[in-house]
């Protein structure tokens, strides 16, 4: 190993220093690089194979199925865009679409804003940082099945915590999950609550990476707190914002477990969201092709939201 590596360069240098160096170094580098590349392919292969077999192939299959009438049994027949035409006349799908978009539009910005505020507060060299961090992170480590059952209890119209608190202020009880006007908002509260901790941790980590020298310099120049935040902290958060935005949009669009455990899409269609509707069409009605068409629309929507979010952030992102 050592001989192959050192030989050409030594010879090259020994013969004539200047042309030798410029001639031999690229050659040596190219042999190293090709060995590097070979090793690289071996090392990336397992992850690549795993992702192709278990993610890429199923995704392509789902897109192809969207143009068929596949229903678990029998061969899929190609039916063109019929599924998509039917979808836009389907009241269940249209409600799910509106509900999901509303849910994303509320949950993503609100939870990002609160998470950033909490992270900034926790970044003030405070005592018991570990305890606070843990408290805000607990909803993240708790499984949605557990979270769902606890909130089901809290929103319980008879003996739940939420109505108990309202009663303390002399307010009349609310059918949090049973009233169609409140059900989706109640789930939004749970969604914001649940996703806060993960975003907060990323912001907190990013804030610790903000250069103290820059902040000091800004302070010396007479910048007030808001100006320091706006012109020093905020731009340095750019890459973290990108990561938080993408993971939140994708994660929020995928809300399923919560709906499955708490409302099952009800009352009526009040909390019917896209993934839940997909699940129902695929495993309830066994209409796999139809469900796949729905997921294709969802993928396009997620892509659109990410582009939109990037545009909105664009002005403030550094890279």
């Amino acid at each position: 190993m050592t001989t192959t590596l050192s030989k050409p360069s030594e010879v090259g240098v020994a013969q004539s220093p200047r042309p030798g160096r410029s001639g031999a170094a690229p050659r040596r580098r190219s042999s190293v690089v090709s060995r590097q590349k070979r090793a690289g392919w071996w090392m990336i292969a397992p992850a690549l194979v795993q992702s192709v077999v278990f993610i890429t192939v199923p995704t392509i299959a789902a897109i192809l199925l969207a143009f068929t009438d596949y229903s678990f049994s029998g061969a899929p027949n190609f039916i063109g865009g019929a599924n998509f035409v039917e979808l836009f006349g389907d009241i269940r799908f249209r409600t799910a679409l509106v509900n999901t978009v509303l849910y994303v539009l509320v949950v993503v910005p609100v939870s990002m804003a609160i998470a950033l505020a909490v992270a900034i507060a926790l970044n003030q060299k405070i005592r018991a940082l570990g305890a606070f961090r843990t408290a805000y992170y607990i909803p993240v480590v708790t499984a949605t099945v557990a979270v769902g059952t606890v909130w089901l209890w809290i929103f319980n119209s008879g003996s739940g915590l939420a109505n108990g608190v309202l009663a303390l202020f002399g307010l009349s009880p609310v059918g949090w999950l049973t009233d169609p006007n409140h059900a989706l908002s109640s789930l939004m509260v749970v969604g914001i609550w649940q996703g806060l901790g993960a975003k907060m941790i990323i912001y907190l980590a990013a804030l610790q990476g903000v250069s103290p020298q820059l902040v000091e310099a800004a302070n010396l120049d007479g910048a007030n707190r808001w100006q320091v935040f706006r012109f020093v902290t905020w731009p340095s958060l750019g890459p973290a914002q990108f990561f938080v935005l993408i993971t939140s949009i994708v994660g929020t669009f995928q809300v399923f477990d919560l709906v499955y455990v708490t409302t099952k899409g009800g009352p009526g269609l009040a909390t019917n969201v896209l993934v839940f509707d997909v699940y129902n069409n695929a495993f309830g009605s066994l209409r796999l092709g139809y469900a796949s068409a729905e997921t294709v629309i969802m993928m396009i929507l997620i892509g659109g939201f990410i582009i939109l979010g990037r545009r909105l952030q664009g002005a403030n992102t550094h890279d």
Partner: protein
Amino acid sequence: MTSPSTAVQAIPGAIVPTRRRKKRVTIGRVALYLVLTVGAFLMIAPFLWMILTAFKSELEVARFTWLPAVWRWDNFVGAMQTAPFLQYFRNSLVIAVGETAVTLAICTMAGYVLSSIPIRGGKFLLNYFITLLMVPFQIILVPLFLIVKSVPLFGGNDIFGQGGTGWLNSWWGLIVPLAAAPIFTFLARQFYVSLPSELADAARMDGVGEFGIFWRIMTPLVKPALITIAVFQIEAAWNGFLWPLMITTTDDLRPLQLGLAIFSQNPASIQWPYLMAGTALATLPMVLLFVFAQKQFVEGMANVGLKG
């Protein structure tokens, strides 16, 4: 260096402003702590409620009370006896350890290659993994099920993957498809990117092989990354619900979350205290994991967004 600062402190006029600033900060701090504490309470209230309910009697659960009249520790014993929780627990442990071990092995390698080795199409591969981040799991659920069912030469399948059940109802099926999410490859890449390439070059000069550079030189430097990835993957595996629901049919393989959901299947006859006791026991290991790993975890997260 030292003399000017002591000189500044010696001047009385310099002390007064700092003192005044300290005082003003203290008032602000009280507000800060107050807001943070109220917020923290809101965050853990549902969790507290769960723990308190676990100690209550069936009757108490029917109306709104915070504290149980009598702390019924035997609810935990009762919950354990009503469902095979120990078995669910063991199953979750096997899945979490299996997925995390595979993830740590293959996602770090892939992340290292994407960050530091100039393979052809490296940029394309990076974008490929980022794109995969955006594919919701629910979308691929059904095709994935069909693929897992037709793994050749497993579960009575022939070489073309027909005739048997493949990886359904097996540890393989539970662990392998979820063992290397693209998000972990991307995370690992973000960490390796922040290491100086001079380190690898120096090791290469000393005749260290490419795998040796990855394994012995670079990977020990990204320990926070390994902890971050491990914590994320353990949590994901521990809290997994939909996939095990689809591919297992017996208690032999079912993990905790599934056990809990089955436990609460019939809303009319849910024994809330038992369910909450089971839920509390299921959540506790993950809370402890975070408590002990959080410092490294936050440090690890600090690298995630550094270089796009």
